[in-house]
């Protein structure tokens, strides 16, 4: 159980690859959502960034998880642009700070790293829950993650709970009026549309659950 509950580089690489696949698959959806209340580029932005992440994963092998997350963060920062680039970039940079020098993470360490990343997003973008941004998917996901781990769940189960909460948070953006980001310019017209960034954020949590559950299943 200990080995499966410790996260190493392999499962994290798998996470990034799954997410890159998911972004490619959902690029049209993310872009279409952004066309409704933004500028029709969120899927394109994310795909540009995660294709680059995918490429770097092949070339830069490191066992230092701090270095790994930092590399992902810097790649996103220098490739995505727009609002989502600095935000997702910050998420991974902050995770990298928590993981600095470590070759494995315990479930709790992983959860703390994600929490630090989300806190970074909130600082960088100063969006609060209810502003109709990715924060609305990430905040409930983090709460659910910590809660489940506190309740003794495996990381797999805890991330599944986080994904469910993240999905609910994503859907909850539909009736919201946007107060941050480009959608805020639409005023009340932003109501009734799902936030693209909340959607890509949910997919990120979902990918994490899939990767980690696959690893747990494999190891057990």
């Amino acid at each position: 159980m200990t080995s499966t509950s410790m996260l190493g580089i392999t499962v994290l690489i798998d996470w990034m690859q799954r997410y890159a696949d998911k972004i490619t698959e959902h690029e049209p959806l993310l872009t279409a959502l952004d066309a409704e209340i933004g500028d029709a580029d969120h899927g394109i932005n994310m795909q540009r960034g995660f294709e680059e992440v995918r490429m770097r994963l092949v070339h830069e092998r490191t066992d230092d998880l701090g270095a790994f997350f930092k590399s992902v963060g810097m790649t996103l920062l220098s490739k995505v642009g727009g609002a989502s680039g600095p935000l997702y970039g910050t998420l991974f940079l902050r995770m990298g700070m928590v993981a600095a020098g470590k070759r494995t993470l315990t479930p709790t360490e992983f959860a703390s790293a994600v929490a630090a990343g989300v806190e970074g997003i909130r600082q960088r973008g100063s969006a609060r829950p209810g502003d109709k941004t990715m924060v609305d998917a990430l905040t409930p996901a983090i709460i659910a993650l910590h809660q489940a781990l506190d309740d003794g769940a495996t990381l797999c189960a805890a991330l599944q709970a986080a994904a469910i909460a993240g999905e609910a948070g994503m859907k909850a953006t539909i009736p919201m009026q946007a107060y941050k980001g480009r959608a805020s310019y639409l005023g009340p017209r932003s109501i009734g549309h799902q936030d693209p960034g909340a959607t890509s954020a949910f997919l990120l949590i979902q990918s994490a659950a899939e990767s980690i559950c696959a690893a747990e299943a494999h190891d057990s």
Partner: protein
Amino acid sequence: MKKLINNPTLVVEEALAGMAHAYPHLLRVNFCPNYVVRADAPQRGKVAVIAGGGSGHEPMHSGYVGVGMLDAACPGPIFTSPTPDQILAAAAAVDGGAGLLFIVKNYTGDVMNFAIAAEECQLAGVPVETVLIHDDVAVEDSLYTAGRRGVGVTVLAEKICGAAAEAGAPLSEVAAIGRKVSEQGRSMGVALTSCIVPAVGRPTFTLPEDEMEIGIGIHGEPGRQRVALQSADEITEMLATTIFDDLPFTRGSRVIALVNGMGGTPLMELFIIFRRLAELCEERDITISRNLIGNYITALEMAGCSLTLLAVDDELLHWWDAPVHTPALHW
């Protein structure tokens, strides 16, 4: 999608290559990361004025690089702000030792990417000031929102700050002038059609033949409101009145007026609009001291226009009139 392009993912780079061929005496283009700097950069001892933002707004920003305006422009992908490393590379290429002025349109992405770049510069000991442009009166302003977005005033701020920097004004002064422009300028726009983001391949929104979007930005996004298509005079009155009311102009004020096409609007229509704007200003005893009429800050092939008014004094007019040698502004 009907566009004169080769590959939707290469439009920015190929257009920059075209600019490099066309204006070697005015500017140099760097690829990977993409930025454009004036041909004679860096200018020792001069504040470097740097702007950037998503592409698709041509001639902004790259078309404003040159003597008397921008030292560097950082073009992002279509409608997507540039990244910090790109901004830093451009900054390094134009830094003349007198500090950097970032002119940033108020979009979350632009603000964050430039903020990260500014933090890095400051860590490296390079002084940076940022002027935020947030002139769009179609957006309600509030402490709890992203605030108003930056549109037409950007062009005016780049010209005026560029002139002050060219004349050797120190960073604090160039920044103060930029902030004054930002405070005293307001804009608003309408769209008759959407535009097509090349990588998307279809219009961002569709608009019936008899409707228009009011309060649009420059990213092909829907506006604040969709209403029945109106006459040029009615549209001009609506835009101008909203601007007048937001930035109270006293009788006798002087302004620079920008009647801007969004990319797909014939010049003739912009003249028709300027005609009514001139009448409206006259009625209020506002003098249009200078004007710009044409495509200066666009949204690809969108049909529509925006109005910008900037209240000016002798100082701003002085900087406005100073010589400028760029592909898109030249006097």
